[in-house]
């Protein structure tokens, strides 16, 4: 059944009823309990970290940036696809985006929020994190504006706020639909409060639509800026393996690559369990797969240029770094990330692979893993051989490192499960508009 067969009413009811009337599936309940436990573990670990200090992780000199920064870069990368889908594809009038933008934005919000936690956890004295914010203070101090870490704060917090506004602006009319359709008073009140009294007046729609378009226009350069700034955290350092001009575009491409992988990881089970195959069609999966293939090649180009530049520079430290990356202690990780991120996505050249939902699901997991490994190799392997052999060392993750990675994954899944249950995972009003456009063609 295509969009053509749907009406305003059936589209609204189908999506709203997932939230309002459909009883919880046992898979959802199982997932909820599991991820709730994981979330509890994550926050308990944070408390323990605050009491004890970063010594519970494997970080030490020379590898002072461990899993925390790896997780930060990885999560913020995942948080890129949502805005890319919503904003960039909206500007390009790619109408197929309509059925995947809402949940991709939610994914962005949760991933970016989790990413924002890690730099704070990583601080030795996290209770002073607000010192990086320019606020009137009795010490008469200002942040150092030439520092990439200050840029980072502004980039991440702006990205979080703008993503939230973009998401919520799109949600307001749908919350009104839920309010008007809810059967119980409690639901009407709660959805009604968040719908802000939206009633769909023509002038309201005109302002709403214009704002949504402009927010898309603002979010598109923003999404490029965020991972560029994150990459500058590395690139402005003189550490071999960080100090490279290819980093900003290479990081942005990697962000989209991992983000689209995560979109597939979430969309494929979602469309299966909530019977959304009419909305999230094979065409959507195929398009996401094509973007995965394209961004995968940009990432591959980044790997190539990194290696080439190291030798071309003639700098002995750069060459030593890249040889250590390829043949040193962490070499197995390097080769596995190349297999995951460069080799594996090549199956997407075949149409059959692009149109096999569960095959794509498996591939998306591989890419997620590969991208996490890439971030880890960049962060950790670049640092473990310092300039002087006397300062060389190894980073071995402790059990706490794994708990923080696993806990953040559980927290992400927990938030996403709540989102699926309480908010419409597909934009209802945009689907109605799509039905209207299909009918009037």
């Amino acid at each position, binding site marked *: 059944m295509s969009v053509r067969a749907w009406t305003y009413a059936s589209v609204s009811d189908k999506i709203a009823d997932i939230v309002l009337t459909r009883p919880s599936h046992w898979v959802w309940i199982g997932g909820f309990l599991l991820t709730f436990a994981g979330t509890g573990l994550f926050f308990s670990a944070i408390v323990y970290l605050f009491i004890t200090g970063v010594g519970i992780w494997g970080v030490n000199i020379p590898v002072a940036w461990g899993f925390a920064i790896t997780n930060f870069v990885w999560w913020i990368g995942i948080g890129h696809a949502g805005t890319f889908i919503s904003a960039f594809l909206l500007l390009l009038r790619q109408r197929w985006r309509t059925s995947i933008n809402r949940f991709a934005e939610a994914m962005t919000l949760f991933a970016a929020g989790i990413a924002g936690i890690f730099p704070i956890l990583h601080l030795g004295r996290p209770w002073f994190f607000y010192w990086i914010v320019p606020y009137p203070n009795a010490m008469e101090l200002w942040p150092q504006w*030439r520092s990439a870490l200050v840029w980072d704060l502004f980039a991440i917090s702006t990205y979080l706020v*703008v993503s939230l506004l973009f998401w919520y602006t799109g949600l307001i009319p749908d919350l*009104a639909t839920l309010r008007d359709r809810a059967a119980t008073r409690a639901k009407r009140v709660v959805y009604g409060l968040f719908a802000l009294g939206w009633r769909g007046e023509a002038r309201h729609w*005109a*302002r709403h639509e214009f704002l949504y378009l*402009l927010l898309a226009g603002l979010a598109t350069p*923003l999404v490029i*800026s965020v991972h560029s700034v994150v990459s500058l955290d590395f690139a402005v350092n003189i550490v071999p393996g960080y100090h490279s001009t290819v980093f900003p575009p290479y990081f942005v491409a990697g962000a989209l690559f991992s983000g689209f992988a995560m979109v597939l990881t979430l969309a494929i089970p979602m469309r299966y369990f909530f019977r959304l195959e009419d909305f999230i069609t094979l065409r959507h999966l195929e398009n996401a797969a094509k973007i995965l293939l394209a961004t995968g090649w940009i990432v591959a180009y980044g790997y190539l240029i990194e290696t080439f530049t190291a030798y071309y520079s003639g700098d002995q430290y750069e060459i030593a770094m890249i040889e250590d990356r390829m043949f040193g202690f962490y070499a197995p990780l390097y080769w596995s990330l190349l297999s995951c991120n460069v080799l594996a996505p090549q199956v997407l050249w075949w149409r059959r692979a692009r149109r096999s939902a569960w095959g794509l699901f498996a591939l998306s997991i591989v890419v997620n893993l590969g991208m996490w490994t890439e971030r880890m190799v960049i962060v950790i392997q670049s640092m473990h051989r310092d300039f002087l052999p006397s300062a060389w060392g190894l980073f071995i993750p402790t059990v706490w490192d794994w708990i923080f990675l696993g806990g953040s994954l559980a927290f992400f899944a927990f938030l996403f499960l709540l989102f699926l249950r309480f908010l419409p995972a597909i934009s209802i009003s945009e689907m109605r508009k799509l039905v209207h456009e299909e009918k009037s063609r």
Partner: protein
Amino acid sequence: MSEKLYGVIAEFASAEALLDAARRARTAGYRGVEAYAPFPVDGLAEAVGMRRNWIAALVFGGGLLGGLGGFFMQWYSAVVSYPINSGGKPPNSWPAFIPVTFELTVLAAALVGFLGMLFLNGLPRLYHPVFNVREFDLASRNRFFLCLRAAPHDEARRFLAGLQPMGIWDVPQ
């Protein structure tokens, strides 16, 4: 009915019918015309008499304010209030101030745009007379409504009946 009315509202089945009705109401000289639809209908806002959409101007103003303010904050802090020598760079090392300036431009533009949208729409407003009409629940699902504020209401009702709607209701104040 002695009770004062907010207006008279009529229900339509399609966006085209609502657009047509709104245009005809305006042509007939009605001023307080409100049209409600479950999704943005092209041309409907103009049809009910919306003249200017201020959102673009607000977003631009917000961005300008954020950008200039953001750069000024960094310049003031690094040149006037707290100049320190960092790597031999001049106090006003403006290229390094660009990332924060850009982020604050976007942040302020988005915030002003969002708050401006709510303000111009008169939201949040949890109570509104049109919600008193039971059928209005469908305005967020599949029905289209046209509300005429103008008195005398009997005349407005007759006018709406001429547009052949699915139903007509009084909207109590």
